């Protein structure tokens, strides 16, 4: 039996979104930050909560801090993201000068919700950052990205980054997750 129209459409959408996410990672790894900013919706929010070690009774409710309420690792919109790019462009942002080498591995892309102009995609990431001689960070976790259709393409509207660390084992977070 040939696959149904709906199954084919879902497959194509997943391929399209996966391609978008990989292309985005490519831009960031290549430090093409201006091009990356063009992929962001003007109302974009990026949120990276802090994970905590809690007893079972509290875990469901309080495992991670809340965007828009609590202290987070990152909780920001376009204005701050663009400021970060400008800081990188100064060439004297010492945390990234000399430039770190960063590779983002994105896998396990799934479409969690799909509407004609909006998708919610889940994925897993490994961000490997190496700088100077022997400094290496390995940030691993999951992401939930909401993309809004814009013409032929998509723009990032929401990003939630769930990092598998409660104490951050990196001295700073000067890369985009």
């Amino acid at each position: 039996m040939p696959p149904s129209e709906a199954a084919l459409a879902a497959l194509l959408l997943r391929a399209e979104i996966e391609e978008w996410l990989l292309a985005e990672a490519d831009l960031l790894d290549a430090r093409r930050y201006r091009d990356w900013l063009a992929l962001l919706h003007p109302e974009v929010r990026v949120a990276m909560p802090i994970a905590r070690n809690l007893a079972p009774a509290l875990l469901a409710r309080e495992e991670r801090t809340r965007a828009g309420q609590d202290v987070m690792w990152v909780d920001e919109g376009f204005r701050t993201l663009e400021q970060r790019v400008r800081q990188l462009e100064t060439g004297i942002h010492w945390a990234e000068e000399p430039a770190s080498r960063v590779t983002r591995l994105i896998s396990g892309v799934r479409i969690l919700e799909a509407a004609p102009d909006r998708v919610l995609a889940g994925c897993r990431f490994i961000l490997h950052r190496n700088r100077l001689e022997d400094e290496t960070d390995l940030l691993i976790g999951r992401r939930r990205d909401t993309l809004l259709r814009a013409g032929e393409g998509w723009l990032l509207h929401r990003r939630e980054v769930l990092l598998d660390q409660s104490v951050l084992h990196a001295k700073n977070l000067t890369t985009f997750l």
Partner: protein
Amino acid sequence: MSSDFADLVDLSEGIVQRAAFTDPAVFAAEQERIFARAWMFLGHESQIPEPEDFFTSRMGTESVILARDRDGQIHALLNSCTHRGMKVCRHDHGKAKVFTCPYHGWSFSNDGRLAGVPGALVGVPHFDKAYRGELKREDWGLSRAPRIENYKGSIWASWDPDAPDFLDYLGDMRLYLDYALDARDGTPGASRVVAGVQKWRVNCNWKFAPENFIGDMYHDISHRSVDMVGIGPNGGQGRRANFRPRIAIGFPGRGHGLLGELPTTEPEEWNNAWALHPEVDEWYRAAHEKRLADLAGRPRVAMSVGTIFPNMSFHGRQPRTILVAHPISPTTTEIWRWCLEDVAAPQNVRDAAREYFLRYSGPGGMTESDDMENWAYATAASQGPIARRRPYNYHMGMGHARPAPGLSDAVECGEITEENARIFHGRWADFMRGQPWPIRLSHAAE
């Protein structure tokens, strides 16, 4: 190097030997002589508002449970089972009447009323059969910090029963701590911490953090990239635009210091520090004006950053935060950051402050991320045998400190100076000599 390591600091020459920052033997001695004696910040009472709430903090290299008992009293209990040392609590916060050790099941009460003393051993599996009832349970409670102080909601503890009272330890640094802990309109202690603590590991010696925040305007140049971007909530170029002139004020003999203003009664116009958010700016203006009106001409202070010896630093202006640099190893530090807000602040004010905090401070902060690079590679490049032949240079402003008008036991030394770093290391030497008490105020004359 003598065994007390105090001679690593030579204030008359203005130098500190690098071994103070890198040597494992120095680090081990610091744990006994500083972190087992000094007053240290553990958390804020707003993190444990209800009876039986706890927050797991640290004192030096050790895990310490900050526990509120049934009667509301707060205790600092060492998080190490008296049987084999297992952590009795592996949760960052929560609620508990007793802490039951996962290893062999000993349980410890957080409640003095139930058990005689907080941390008492109240449950021992097989007490009758295997111990034959012979274990003297009353001798095996959790270690408890004998000194604890709730100062305007900030909780401090010391392992030294002979430590001076916290307020004496603080001296007039208290005025500046007040500035951070009081509400913006001056209401005493009417602040709380925003939920969530940033904790992160930096490959640097712990002393880089307190030395940085005690009053090091000289390193401002390292933040030029963020200044070029301009992330301040006034929308202007500088993250510190619109502040009145600041100077370094230090407390010799106590080891504290800050960048801020001397006590003043001069009128002060509101400076539109939040101009990017007009309604937020209005709220701050009203708070500022109420503070001045309530003071009715009595002196007031303001400050940006400061350090309370040994490892607590704080920002009194937005972004208002508390930082503790926990020693992990000579070359590893775990930094914790809390964010403070007014209890009475409306949502838009809290949002603006929290967002400014997140883009300024912490590992993701556009200002602080560059500090981490400097502290880490300064530590790394100070360890070699040749590097260690040269001490660090603290010459700036030597001999130019003057008594600070309006403050007791304090000096000021202009805006850009290493006076406060010298004060910090002088105090460090007192502790390393094993002579932190009584506080030697004669330092003021040195």
